């Protein structure tokens, strides 16, 4: 029985591990943090494998997000990137403007608190609605909206080029 469980579990991780690791990376912001976050979620899934085997991926994703935002697990001192470590904003727009903007945004994302980054990951990596995001995180839709808005406000402050984009048509919440 244990061999069956181990075999099924290993096959699941081999099949879905890479995709789950990308989600974990977006949440944790580092390779080490992502592996740790994912391995912890997978370990919990392993202990419950007979009950969740047909529904393992949603289970693991839910744990990933909950671990990321849980007060007990959350880093009291977050590994944020100091503002002066952010790359300089290009003075002129050029052909590499979009790439520059993405790079600046990517770095700025790392400065967000875990809950805000989790909301943005669910909304923009997983393409979930506000309602779906709230259901997964176990909070109200208003909280999702306010967390997203605060995250966007901070990104605008950190990346003026993004603020220019955002000030044209408003970013939806």
């Amino acid at each position, binding site marked *: 029985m244990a061999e069956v469980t181990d075999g099924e*579990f*290993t096959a699941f*991780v081999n099949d879905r*591990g*890479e995709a789950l*690791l*990308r989600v974990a990376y*977006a949440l944790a*912001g580092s*390779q080490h*943090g*992502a*592996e*740790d976050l*994912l*391995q*912890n979620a*997978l370990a*919990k*899934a*392993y*202990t*419950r494998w007979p009950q969740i085997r047909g529904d393992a991926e949603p289970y693991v994703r839910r*744990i990933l997000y*909950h*671990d990321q935002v*849980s*007060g*007990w*697990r*959350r*880093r*009291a*001192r977050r590994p944020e990137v100091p503002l002066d470590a952010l790359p300089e904003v290009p003075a002129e727009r050029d052909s590499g403007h*979009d790439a520059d*903007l*993405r790079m600046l*945004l990517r770095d700025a*994302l*790392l400065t967000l608190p875990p809950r805000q980054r989790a909301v*943005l990951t669910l909304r*923009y*990596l997983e393409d979930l609605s506000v309602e779906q995001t709230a*259901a997964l995180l176990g909070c*109200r839709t*208003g*909280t999702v*909206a*306010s967390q997203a*808005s*605060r995250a966007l406000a901070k*990104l605008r402050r950190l990346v003026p080029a*993004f603020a220019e*984009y*955002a000030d*044209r*048509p408003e*970013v*939806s*919440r």
Partner: protein
Amino acid sequence: MSSPAEEALRAAVRDLARQARPAPDLAAGAMRRGRRLRARRRAAVAAAAALVAVAAVALPFVLLRPESPVRPAVPEPTATVTPTPELLPTPGPSWSASPLALPGGWVVTGAGRGGSSQGGSGWVLDRSQGRYRPVQGYDGVWPAPEGTLTALADEDRPGEIGLADAARRRTDWFRTGKWLMQPQWSPDGRRLLLTIQGEGEPMRLGVLDADGGVRTFPVDTDRYFCTDYCFFTWAGDGREVALQQTGSGGPQSESARHPRRGVQLFSAEDGRPTRFVAMPGDPAGPWAWSPNGRLVVVQGQREPLLVETADGRVVRSLPAADAAFVTDDRLLYRRPYGDRDFVLADPTGRELVRQPLPPELVDRIVTVAPS
């Protein structure tokens, strides 16, 4: 899908995710960690069922029978007359062997792990033995401010709360319904306050008693209107609970905290609305209210504030919203941005005593209570 800004953000989030490199042995490592987790849980259940005295080993949760509670040494009050804060010594490497005293006669009751690298590990004060016990494997751990109970959350038990009782040496799990945010203990450590809200259901005030009895009361959230952060917290008397009330005037921006007109109080006994207290922010819990009831610390829209409860007048801003009234004229809080020490200050914000934390607790979420 929509604006260029949204597309740029989507691309950046995906760029970030794509930075992940393949991780070798993910399955094997997870299985090893899973087996350890399972073993720890089994060990805890076995320990509780057999009612055996457990030595100081790293089990998921171990609390022993209280005998003669050890009272921590309280820092000398001489600092109250010094013009600059007195810096107390940093606890040494054997800090977990006795209660960590804080200025004002308080004590550290628990410390949670930041990050998941330790599987949610931390420490809880075992008052019966006067030392800290390691905790591991739970998703939420909330030691009661008084007595022998610790509330537990486990992702594998959604909608349930565990109560580990050191006096009875056992952990029981109780179905409460899906709760939001964090449970909060009453000051006497006998009732756990919950904000209960299932998917598509109205918000309910929930109280889990120490004996496992669960009482829930519906709340008219149209009448008692709250947006943004909405959850129940204990008021200072331990008999009423507070719900934040959104202010009606002024613009509401999703980029900032919503304006507050005050808190609506409800009886924790029967859920009946009792009174409204005007204040421009959210109190964090029972210790945010001064013992004489005249002042309360709230998180205002922009900054922590000290407020008169009689009329909601702001007395002054404060360094931290999660501050505890130790007495009517002394506040205890963790120094913002520092994280390394707790500060005893007077209501004017003048720091009197600083107590550094042990290095192991600097990055932890620390809970405190009267000793």
